[in-house]
């Protein structure tokens, strides 16, 4: 910092001669402030003012104390400009920590309350004739898998063909409008997708229609744009040399795409599709409207109501029986299973992307 601009700060001191806080001091102040407020809240608990030790409060107020301290200290020692820099640094860090709090709290709660019913019965029993304890979510898990699988079956061919069109063929107005509306489609609220699928089927099958396939259509409306966007990005990074080499050998365009471009980008495409699945598998609102809910097993996508895991979580919470606890416990376990499925899909997708990625991609 020996090249600081020569100027008079508001305090009137010369910045060239202003002091500098030792490196790493901010971390010490942060930890110190946390300790101070942990002590404060422990005292509050010991004195009986609060019933529990307030972890979130301790870290939140500790971080705020750190923000104030670091700015004041820096202002005294380092002068105005540096103090402002420190202020922004600490605010930005605070924003990050504040956002971590709900994430940590959420994951902790889901795991700690979800393990209560994370047992064998949960995975091989349905809710048929269950009005209190026991029961499981097998019907919901089966439903989720079937509905999502069928949605994938619809979306993947359409999505990948569209992205091929956009990358390999698309010129002019049609391509531009497809790109634009795919972007717009990513913003369709999930419940509107549900309403669309419902209205579509209600015209043919009457207003009481509830079936797994309706839910699949709703999910694929949400899934197609995601698949298109990710596949498009992947197809774009296939090097042009490969295409040109193939054309030079006299291979027709469609064979070039099928035999050269798709195999090259297979890993990326798989990753994109799995991320898209993980995105729609947790959707609740469209399924609530389209597949309805039931307590029994139903393997048939094309007739009758079908339970899905997100809807199961919702109904267990919303329609609690006379004794609420087993219902809420089942809801938390459902949430845990759902999060595990989504995380697994995410991890697997990234692994596939990393392991099978062609060598040129980076």
């Amino acid at each position, binding site marked *: 910092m020996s090249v600081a601009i020569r100027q008079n700060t508001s305090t009137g001191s010369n910045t060239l001669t202003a002091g500098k806080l030792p490196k790493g001091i901010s971390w010490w102040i942060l930890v110190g402030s946390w300790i101070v407020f942990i002590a404060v809240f422990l005292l509050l608990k010991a004195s009986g003012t609060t019933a529990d030790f307030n972890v979130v409060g301790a870290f939140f107020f500790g971080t705020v104390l750190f923000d104030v301290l670091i700015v004041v200290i820096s202002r005294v020692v380092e002068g105005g400009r540096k103090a402002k820099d420190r202020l922004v640094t600490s605010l930005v860090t605070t924003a990050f920590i504040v956002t971590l709090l709900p994430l940590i709290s959420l994951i902790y709660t889901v795991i700690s309350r979800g393990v209560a019913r994370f047992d064998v019965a949960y995975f091989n029993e349905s809710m048929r004739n269950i009005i209190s304890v026991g029961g499981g979510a097998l019907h919901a898990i089966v439903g989720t898998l079937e509905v999502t699988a069928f949605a994938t079956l619809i979306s993947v061919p359409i999505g990948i063909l569209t992205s091929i069109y956009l990358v390999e063929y698309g010129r002019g107005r049609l391509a531009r409008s497809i790109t634009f509306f795919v972007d717009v489609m990513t913003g369709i609220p999930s419940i509107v997708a549900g309403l669309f699928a419902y209205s579509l089927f209600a015209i043919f099958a009457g207003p009481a229609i509830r079936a797994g396939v309706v839910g699949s259509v709703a999910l694929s409306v949400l899934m197609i744009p995601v698949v298109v966007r990710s596949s498009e990005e992947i197809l774009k990074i296939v090097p042009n040399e490969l295409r040109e080499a193939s054309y030079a050998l006299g291979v027709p365009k469609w064979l070039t795409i099928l035999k050269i471009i798709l195999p090259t980008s297979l890993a990326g495409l798989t990753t994109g599709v799995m991320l898209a699945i993980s995105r729609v598998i947790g959707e609740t609102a469209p399924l*609530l409207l389209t597949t309805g809910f039931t307590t029994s097993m139903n393997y048939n996508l094309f007739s009758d109501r079908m339970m899905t895991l997100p809807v199961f979580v919702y109904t267990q919470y919303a329609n609690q029986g006379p004794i609420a606890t087993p219902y809420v416990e089942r809801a938390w376990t459902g949430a845990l299973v759902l999060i595990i499925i989504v995380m697994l899909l995410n991890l697997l997708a990234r692994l596939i992307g990393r392991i099978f990625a062609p060598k040129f991609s980076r």
Partner: protein
Amino acid sequence: MTATAERPVSTGRPKAKIRLGDRVFSTATVLSGSLILLVLVLVAAFLVAQSLPAFFAAKGTLPDSSTNFWTYVGPLVFGTVWAAFLALIIATPLALGIALFISHYAPRRISQLLGYIIDLLAAVPSVVFGLWGVLVLAPFIQPFYNTLVDKLGWIPLFAGPVSGTGKTILTAAIVLAVMVLPIMTAVMREIFLQAPVLHEEAALALGATRWEMIRMAVLPFARSGIVSAIMLGLGRALGETLAIAIVLSPATVINVFLLTSQNPNTIAANIALQFNEAQGVGLNTLIASGLILFVITLLINMLARYVVNRRKDFSGAN
């Protein structure tokens, strides 16, 4: 290959042979591309078809004894916009902070990991957020609401009577804010990372502090990206359903009180709560309110995309 030399020179450009496979394949891709446009049109058409009865419904047939469709949907539109607005007020500064933290403040080595952690939030299904909001956040934050109403009750926003359960629109907005953070952060982060490094280094070389560098080199470059990130977040927040349906304790009112148990409901949450019991015109009314939501989000998303596309350099928005 010698045959080419002997071939008589044609007058026009050489014509490529048209193969059946090529025809079939390119037609298939065009069809599926057009199918997407068709779906979007169909979404609009079916929603309109199903909502027409609601628009022309006679007095007395609508739910909540509303005189016409617009008096029914009015409070819902207000609630939707109000909840999304509150969520954005909370989420925007946080998203800016997180994006800057990841792109410019955190050590290079862990910044990608931090990005993953924020993306984790996006992987949590909305129903789980709802469950967490109502069973963890609401009881946790309710004592704080008590204090707010006691001390600051003279400000209209914090007017009482305070909700005893914590299921207020402020709680819903906090949950919404957490849910829209990942998309906003992701877009902003991309754009901050694309800021020209030479400008940043020049600013630092002139003796600017890190904040001055960001203010002079990064923020002006990223302005339109920030706007579009906010609008994408807004689109998400407007359409969010289950979290609100679970967390909010709704009423048919228009008010701006944050902490009471009489909260304006949102369109999406209202549909989710009423749909399975609705029939006849009631059903059409719900679908019509969905159409309104569709139009609102469509306009906002198109605006956001337009802002992004105007400066193609900011292709960071996914």
